[in-house]
């Protein structure tokens, strides 16, 4: 009984450590890329105390931030619900971590028994994944409400509304892949993509497209970062958080980004598969991480360029565009899987999906007239 515990520990501990370190790197990466997009340099000047070595390309910036967070005073607003105020960041972080373990890393040092346990325990990994991420919505709401601040409450309500409505397209697009593979287990999905990745099938592409957008909304990133829109409601649900709790929130957010993109990779980009993997099995982790960082680059890229969505546009986009499209995609995928000839399924599915997308978008514009400017001429 003890060794199973040890095995589990052995499996989960390295994943947690890897991604925690990556968190620091990605914060730096994000600030650098944003700076480059905005035609500026970004953090590049950190002098290490007691040494004169300064030019570190800002790589130490995350450490500096972390230290700042630790040192800053941790304020709890008067009359706020202290227990919930403390619980919210924890609840944001824990699910993200749990979900990471579900990803199909085949760690090089894992032996046979560890692999078996891993497989058995995660028979319905994808389902569990979605279950646990839904706890994240709860944490956001708890934060919003516990800080007893109108803006944070508003931010919390917006975040919950957004995350709840985008959860459906997320799950439905994942369902397409599950239907194709026939199993919820991540390993089986990755195995199924050994020859060709699902991204290269028409419905797979559409599914990835929907999954990616929904994941952005799920983690409150870029075009969908309404909850912490600085211009309107300061920092959204974590306005009242400062110091280490704020850091925890940030960590939680980034981990959930890694997790969701990890899932995207497993579902659409064939997880750890890549060239030379058969030769060097340890390459699968590298490929896995590389793909994740590719997606993260796109996310940061989007953050720098795409403007923020209004609430009603946000909701309309989810309910009137993504969800119908994902349901249609489900049907199209079913048909395509039945009819195996790719030369026939490709054009047909592509055509249908494109037509649907075009039609739905046209439906949206029906009542959108030319913009009218009241003051600026």
């Amino acid at each position, binding site marked *: *009984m003890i060794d199973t*515990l040890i095995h589990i520990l052995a499996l989960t501990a390295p994943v947690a450590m890897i991604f925690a370190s990556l968190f620091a790197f990605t914060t730096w990466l994000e600030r650098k890329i944003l700076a480059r997009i905005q035609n500026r340099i970004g953090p590049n000047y950190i002098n290490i105390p007691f040494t004169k070595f300064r030019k570190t390309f800002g790589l130490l910036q995350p450490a500096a931030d972390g230290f700042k967070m630790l040192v800053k005073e941790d304020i709890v607003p008067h009359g706020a*619900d202290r*227990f*919930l105020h403390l*619980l919210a960041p924890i609840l944001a972080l824990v699910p993200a971590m749990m979900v990471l373990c579900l990803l199909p890393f085949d760690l090089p040092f894992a032996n046979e028994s560890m692999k078996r346990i891993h497989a*058995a325990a995660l*028979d*319905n990994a994808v*389902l*569990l994944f*979605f*279950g*646990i991420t*839904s*706890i994240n*919505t*709860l944490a956001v*709401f*708890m934060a919003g*409400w516990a800080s007893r601040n109108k803006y944070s409450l508003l931010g919390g*309500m917006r975040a*919950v509304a957004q995350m*709840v409505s985008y*959860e459906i397209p997320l799950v439905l697009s994942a369902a397409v892949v599950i239907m194709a593979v*026939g*199993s*919820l287990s991540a390993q089986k999905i990755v195995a199924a993509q050994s020859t060709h990745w699902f991204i290269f099938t028409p419905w797979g592409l559409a599914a990835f497209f929907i999954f990616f957008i929904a994941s952005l909304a799920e983690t409150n990133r870029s075009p969908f970062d309404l909850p912490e829109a600085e211009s309107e409601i300061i920092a959204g649900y974590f306005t009242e958080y400062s110091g280490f709790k704020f850091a925890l929130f940030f960590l939680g957010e980034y981990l959930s980004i890694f997790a969701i993109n990890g899932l995207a990779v497993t579902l659409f980009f064939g997880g750890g598969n890549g060239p030379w993997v058969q030769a060097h099995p340890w390459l699968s982790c590298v490929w896995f991480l590389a793909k994740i960082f590719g997606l993260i680059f796109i996310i940061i890229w989007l953050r720098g360029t795409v403007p923020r969505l209004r609430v009603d546009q946000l909701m309309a986009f989810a309910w009137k565009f993504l969800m119908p499209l994902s349901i249609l995609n489900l049907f199209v995928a079913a048909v395509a899987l039945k009819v195996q000839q790719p030369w026939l399924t490709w054009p047909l599915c592509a055509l249908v999906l494109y037509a649907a997308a075009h039609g739905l978008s046209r439906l949206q514009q029906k009542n959108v007239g030319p913009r009218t400017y009241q003051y600026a001429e």
Partner: protein
Amino acid sequence: MIEQVAFYILSAVAVLGALLAVSRRNLVHGVFALLLFFAALSGLFVMLLADYVAAVQVLVYIGAVGILLLFTIMLTEHVTGDDLRRLGVRGWFWGLLLAVAVPAVLILPAVLNEKSAKAAPIVVAQGNPALANNATQANTVKALGKVLMEKYVVPLEVLALLLTAALIGAVAVAHAPEKDASGKDTPA
């Protein structure tokens, strides 16, 4: 050994969560206690090797019902908990008594005399240890999906119908009447 410890911990958490959910004056604390209770139960399901049900439990209860309850509390005035002077409704003492009596009646025969337990209508499989032997058995999601799709396809469709009806019904009932020009509620 581990199972027993896990079982007792989880059941303790569940009972505590339930009690807190029922007794807290602050409704939001009640909701979170309830969510704790759901999580504990999901753990119990995992212990009973019904992990699909556990996952669904988490997804449905913690993910959706919890949020729904919170929204309802938001929309009704008592967010900061009952400001009512007393907690219980008239004649709460009888309620307490009955709340104890009903489970007692269910448990008592099993506890009081072993004989009646044997005669208990429930056919208990002989020596069916929980975890070990059928771990790899048919409780994979595939088997469940197959059974659902073959044997219980009609109930599934009915369930689908029920859910849509509930969805539409809930919206219709809770739909706030639009304010017409004069600010008066138009009939819903």
